[in-house]
């Protein structure tokens, strides 16, 4: 049986930021940073990981009740904020995992302050750009177009619930507060080109690193996995067939198992 996560509200810099952090489980600390579209908060794959780790899942500023997006002007601010959040949580170091936007942040943290990161897991991370395989323009997409990008084409093997899909759809109604809130922060750090210089800094990543991708990811094509592998010294890539951008919802057990195994070393 899994317990629902507890919610921590962390004040930082005298109230400039308030971080909403979900926490559950026992064991070595694992910080999970969510992506920009289609998933945030808690999900079954985090339950699985909480069986072996103490999982911290903060909302990025601008999402849910986490505030202070207006004080984060660039990726350096965003990265320092998350290192500061680890300090506030009393984590001298932790495993870091991140999806899409959260993956970019995790990689930046590992490059900027390698000592904070024990092991690093990047799931379909943002942060690089290829002219021959552009990251899809998620800011302009309507609901149908985004669904096409987020999920693998086939339904076979998907663990995503009807609720997951409905939530992703709801969030894409053009003027829905959910879409606006979710993608506002993403737009700030990923628009117009989600390359903010990670390629110049990735060589500094010291943590053993695992790069995971859904073979059918149409938001960030899996060809980017090779670029991350090339840029991060000693990293390893695993690609999941029949999975799209939301691989952690589509194949939650398999993904959680792979991550847990890697983190255990």
């Amino acid at each position, binding site marked *: 049986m899994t317990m629902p996560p507890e919610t921590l509200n962390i004040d930082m810099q005298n109230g400039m930021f308030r971080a909403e952090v979900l926490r559950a489980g026992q064991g070595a600390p694992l910080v999970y940073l969510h992506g920009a579209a289609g998933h945030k908060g808690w999900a079954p794959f985090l339950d699985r990981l909480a069986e072996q780790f103490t999982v911290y899942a903060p909302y990025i500023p601008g999402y849910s009740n986490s505030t202070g*997006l207006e004080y984060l*002007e660039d990726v350096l601010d965003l990265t320092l904020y998350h290192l500061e959040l680890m300090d506030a949580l009393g984590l001298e170091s932790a495993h870091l995992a991140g999806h899409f936007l959260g993956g970019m942040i995790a990689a930046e943290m590992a490059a900027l302050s390698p000592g904070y990161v024990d092991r690093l897991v990047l799931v379909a991370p943002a942060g690089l750009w290829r002219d021959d395989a552009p990251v899809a323009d998620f*800011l*302009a*997409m*309507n609901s149908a*177009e985004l669904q096409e990008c987020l999920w693998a084409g086939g339904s076979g093997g998907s663990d995503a619930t009807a609720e997951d899909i409905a939530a992703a759809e709801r969030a894409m109604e*053009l*003027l829905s*507060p959910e*879409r*606006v*809130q*979710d*993608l*506002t*922060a*993403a*737009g*700030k750090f990923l*628009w*117009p*080109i989600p390359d903010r210089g990670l390629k110049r800094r990735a060589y500094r990543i010291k943590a053993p690193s695992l790069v995971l991708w859904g073979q059918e990811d149409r938001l960030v094509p899996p060809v980017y996995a090779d670029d991350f592998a090339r840029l991060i010294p000693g990293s390893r890539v695993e690609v999941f067939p029949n999975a799209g951008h939301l691989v952690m919802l589509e194949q939650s057990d398999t993904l959680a198992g792979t991550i847990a195994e890697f983190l255990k070393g």
Partner: protein
Amino acid sequence: MKMCFFHLMPYGYLPEDFSNQYHSVWVDAPNHLFDPKKGTQLYNDYLDELEFAEEMGFDGLCVNEHHYNAYGLMPSPNLMASAMTRRTSKAAIIVLGNSLALYNPPVRVAEEFAMLDVLSGGRFVAGFPLGTSQDTVFGYGEVPVTLREKYNEAHDLVIKAWTEREPFAFNGKYTQLRYVNIWPRPYQEPHPPVWVPGSGSLETWDWTIEHDYVYCYLSYSGYKVGKTVLDGFWEEVDRQGKEFNPYHAGFLQLVAVSETDSQVDEYKDYIEYFFKKCLHVPGGFANAPGYRTLRSINSGVSTQIVESRREQATDFNWMDYVKAGNVIVGSPESVREELAQAIRELRVGNLMLLLHFGDMPKDITLKNTELFAKEVMPYVRDIWSEYETRWWPKTMMDA
């Protein structure tokens, strides 16, 4: 009333099946569809039409800025305004405007607008739009959530560049300059009147009222939807304790005048070209997340505009656009009546007339312009005669 002739300068040769074959008229319509030779003819026809409008007695001539847009071929309206200053002498030259956040450094706008003001002998009106989501976010790669802050800062810099008489330094968040010292400075003192095109964002209302600028609602949704936006603006003026003056606001309306009511179907094709092809824009381009604040979205005004467009885009024919008020068409008598009603309902003193739209040819445009000027304009001119505008070039009012 101040009656202004507005031109969008659309490309009039989009293929028949454009809206089925292409994703959007704006942002990603491929420019292989543009024939430069036809473009030469269009630009010159359009400038002729603007100059003719002055001859017919319009008070102002308006041009505006769009990027990657097949219905607005003016990435730089300043170039068109510049051409107009040489062939006109009486009408105000109104650029609506330059999207301040797109210029680096924004003093470029202060400089070019000052040039236009000097070149025209103080006939210039400066428009400062935030800029549409299509132009700013998707066209020029601006980050939606910081656009307004960048715009506000650029505005402060431009006003200071216009009004300071000694060089100064500017340490902003988005622009840092050791020296700001524009030559020429504007002809008008302290600077040209400022008009702000908007689309129903509460922040634009607040800001425009705070700075005492003209608020212009430039939509193609017509006066029936426009009333929601203008009512909101006037409520805000009232709430902020400012005195009502109809010249504080402007509105754009499509109008087509025929000799008789039975002849109006001569405009059918141009109306359908405009609404079916020119406004073929997917909602995602118009609403980048973060472009509108949640506060504005929750106010419902933007939602209503989006909804009205979606409804109209699907199965309207040209008469539906007429019924919805998108276009006012008819004999001079019919147009007078409907337009006067719209002006009174919206309580606007600055009217921008879009008398060319879609693929309307030059001879029809000139006819529409002449009929409007001679048979309609005189009947609505005096509607707000008890008010005076403080948003018109002073040089011209003294003359």
